[in-house]
């Protein structure tokens, strides 16, 4: 039995940030029995996964074979053929055409997929999409500009229309289900205040916001942010960029995705802070070990009060499953894919 999966996050080039690559590597590591070098040669045992690498084309294809010696018992399926580098539409199409048993689906396509009869597996919202303003840009030097933009954004409309209700408006760095303090950060738009600030600063320089060229969700969100900012009187242009263009210096801000690495708010916040500080140029905000919820809240508030980081929405992980996939359970936040327990129903000829 073989499971064919079409995954996006294993493709380093398609990941919006390095964190995704690292996260993906963790997923793979947890599955692997042995470890191989960049040349594909066996290096030595690594991990204690249910599968071992059978074929490996970095960024394109990964074939895993069941580890006969897995301590937890041999997996039900013999192998997993993971193909990477396909667009969201192609992944969905592969699923609909039964060319894949499992595929990542963009949250905004989840409703369509469900209407087309695809089984969905939706996680809790564990990925933050935020607008990050880069330091040293004249257009956003004044924090009030960033504040005006932040206040102008109608996050609920983004969730309703763009995400098709697959997500939550985000006002904090951590989700409510994780920190319990997210409700303290407002997500409601405040166009009146935004306009007032805009009139006060009366800037005419157009702010350029970048988004991942291959990410249609980010594109739609960026365009909506531009509309909201325009209504508030802030000129904002959106610019698709490739990963190589991110550091070109032409962008004033960018949409970034921050995925929680665990359900622990502290661990995720540490990861978020370490990721955001180099991007925003904010002063380090050390997250002490064993920090309380109040301390985490303060750290979040300190970071967000600068308006250099503007949380937008929380989105879940959505997987589409073919009809024959059985015993698939949504992995825990930051946890490995449960391929070891999955089995495939025999198709009737």
């Amino acid at each position, binding site marked *: 039995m073989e499971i064919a999966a079409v995954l996006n996050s294993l493709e380093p080039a398609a990941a919006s940030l390095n964190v995704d690559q690292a996260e993906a590597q963790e997923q793979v590591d947890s599955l692997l029995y042995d470890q191989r070098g960049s040349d594909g040669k066996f290096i030595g045992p690594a991990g204690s996964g249910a599968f071992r690498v059978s074929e490996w084309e970095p960024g394109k294809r990964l074939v895993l074979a069941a580890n006969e010696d897995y301590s937890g018992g041999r997996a039900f399926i013999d192998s997993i053929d993971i193909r990477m580098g396909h667009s969201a539409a192609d992944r969905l199409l592969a699923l609909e055409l039964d060319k894949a048993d499992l595929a990542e689906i963009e949250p905004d396509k989840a*409703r369509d997929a469900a209407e087309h009869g695809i089984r969905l597996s939706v996680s809790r919202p564990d990925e933050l999409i935020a607008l990050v303003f880069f330091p040293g840009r004249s257009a956003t030097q004044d924090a009030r500009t960033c504040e005006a933009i932040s206040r102008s954004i109608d996050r609920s*409309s983004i969730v*309703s229309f*763009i995400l*098709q209700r697959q997500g939550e408006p985000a006002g904090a760095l951590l989700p409510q289900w994780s920190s319990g303090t997210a409700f303290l950060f407002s997500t409601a738009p405040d166009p009146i205040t935004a306009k007032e600030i805009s009139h006060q600063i009366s800037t005419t320089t157009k702010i350029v916001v970048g988004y991942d060229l291959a990410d249609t969700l980010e594109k*739609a969100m960026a365009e*909506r942010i531009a509309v909201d900012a325009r209504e508030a009187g802030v000129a904002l242009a959106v610019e698709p960029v490739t990963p190589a263009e991110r550091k070109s210096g032409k962008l004033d801000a960018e949409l970034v995705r921050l995925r929680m690495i665990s359900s622990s708010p502290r661990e995720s916040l540490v990861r978020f802070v370490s990721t955001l500080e180099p991007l925003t140029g904010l002063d380090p905000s050390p997250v002490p070990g064993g920090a309380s919820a109040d301390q985490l809240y303060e750290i979040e508030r300190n970071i967000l009060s600068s308006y250099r980081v503007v949380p937008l929405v929380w989105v879940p992980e959505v997987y589409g499953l073919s009809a024959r996939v059985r015993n698939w359970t949504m992995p825990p936040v930051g946890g490995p894919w449960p391929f070891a327990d999955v089995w495939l129903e025999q198709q009737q000829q």
Partner: protein
Amino acid sequence: MTFRTKLFIIFTLALIVSIGLVAVGVTTGARRAFNQLNTLHSEAFVAQFEREFQRSEQDVVHKVQGIADAEGTVRMAIDLSRPQADVSLYVNDARGVAQSHQLDFLDFVSSDGSIISSTEWPARFGYKMTWVTQPQNWALVGSFLMKVDTQNGPALGVMAVSTVRVGDKNLYVVGGERLGKDFLSSLVLPDGMRALLYQNLSAQFDPVNLIDQTGPAFQAERFAPFITQQQQHPAEQLFKISWTRDRASGEVFHALPLLGRQKELLGVLLVGSSQNQVVTLERQIRMLALEVVALGLLFGALMSWWGAARVTEPVRKLAEGARAVSEGNWNTRVDVRGPHEIAELGRSFNRMTQQLAEQRERLLQAERVAAWREVARRLAHELKNPLFPLQTTVENLQRAKSHHPEQFDEVFRESTSILLSEIQNLKDIINRFSDFSKMPQPELSTVNLNDVVRSAAKLFEPQFGALGRPPVTPELHFDEQLPAISGDAALLRRAIENLILNALDAMPAGGVLMLRTTHDDHDVHLEVSDTGTGLTAEECERLFTPYYTTKQHGTGLGLAIVQSIVSDHGGRIWVDSEPGVGTSFHILLPVKPSPHVAPAPPPAAPQPPVVVETEKV
């Protein structure tokens, strides 16, 4: 300027004017015709645009109505009419519907004016489109031009609105087509014409908003004044833009304002008609006209020259003939051929000169005969006078020899004395004739005629008051400003002496002899007048003929000599006379032309120009 040249110029000018008028007429007419044609093309294109625009409007209305009538749209309207309807379900519907209906703009708008789904700006969901909810029967409105806000900025669109009503709620379908370069590309343009569209999307003229079918228009800023004028007063307008100094680069534009629902100016259609073909054709016609003119002028000039020569050649020959005749060439003949009047004139001229020559020859012959007769008469007369005493003396000698031998010696002495005297008299007569035949050529020098006249007059002073004859009173009037002349003083004096002598002979009873000198710019004038018996007109005519005399003992050579001297000095002599009153001889001598001749010395003190000296002897 010769007659031929004048005729040539007249012919040529007439030709130039004629051909020029034709060329100008052809060029002007061609230009007018081309301009009219151009205007017709432009108007036809504007009419075509209006038809295309109307067709697009109808097309848009039908498409939007089709979308509103579609099952999916009706289902959407029904769904949205429910309480707590989830509008987010339809956020992406507009794009697909617009593509299937080939619309550039499509919005689904809810009953409260919120945008549910938008093609031109998908991210505007949730925002209000309030104008569409205003009470309006959109079915009656039809299509209209509108400024549409899109993701990439405002654009012009031909729009229509259709309503799907479910219960008390409306779903508005707002759709349209972009009025841009694709629309311009759809227009079929004749060669040399193009269409531009100015999208009036900003308060001031913005060159970026002027497009043609390929994109932003070239040198759009050149249209600024005309667009600004349209923005202030929208109306059809014609104007011309010359892109370079070359007139062929010019382009005539027909500006057609495009108005929105509120009659606001949303765009200006500019139908450009290149002047290149027109100007090129005009130039070709002008070039052809110039070539024709040049050839015509060349041919006309040649023909004019030939015609002028043909007309004037006989006249020139006649003029040369007349000049030759005036110079004394009486045998001159002109060769004028042809049957026309000029030839007849030439033949008449030839007949006239022939007759003149024959008459002159006869006159000369007659004059020669008369002159010889006069010479013979004068010789006979002159010789007869001394011959008679010679004959008488010789007969006295014969008689004395035969009848009175004793007295012969005495008679012989007396007779030989008489014979010698008469022979001397004969010699004198012969010498005078000989002198006349041997008149010397004047030896010219600077001469003051006043001095010559004074000298001559002084010679005759003894005779003016001689005893035994009535006195003659001389009156001398000298022009002291008299310029010098070039002459032979001795010959001139001889001539003046002859005239004075004639005057004295003409006044046997005494009288007044007047000598007067005057001058003008060219000549000096000497008048010798007497108050003698005067001459008849016939005598005046023959007075200067050699050997003609009115005196009892004159040789008739005096005045001939005078005339000869005056003629040799380049002068002229004539006589005025009236019988019983007196005679005046007038001599005109040219003023000396040489610059070396010293002018007469100026008077020491102001004096009257004429001095009258009266001497009574």
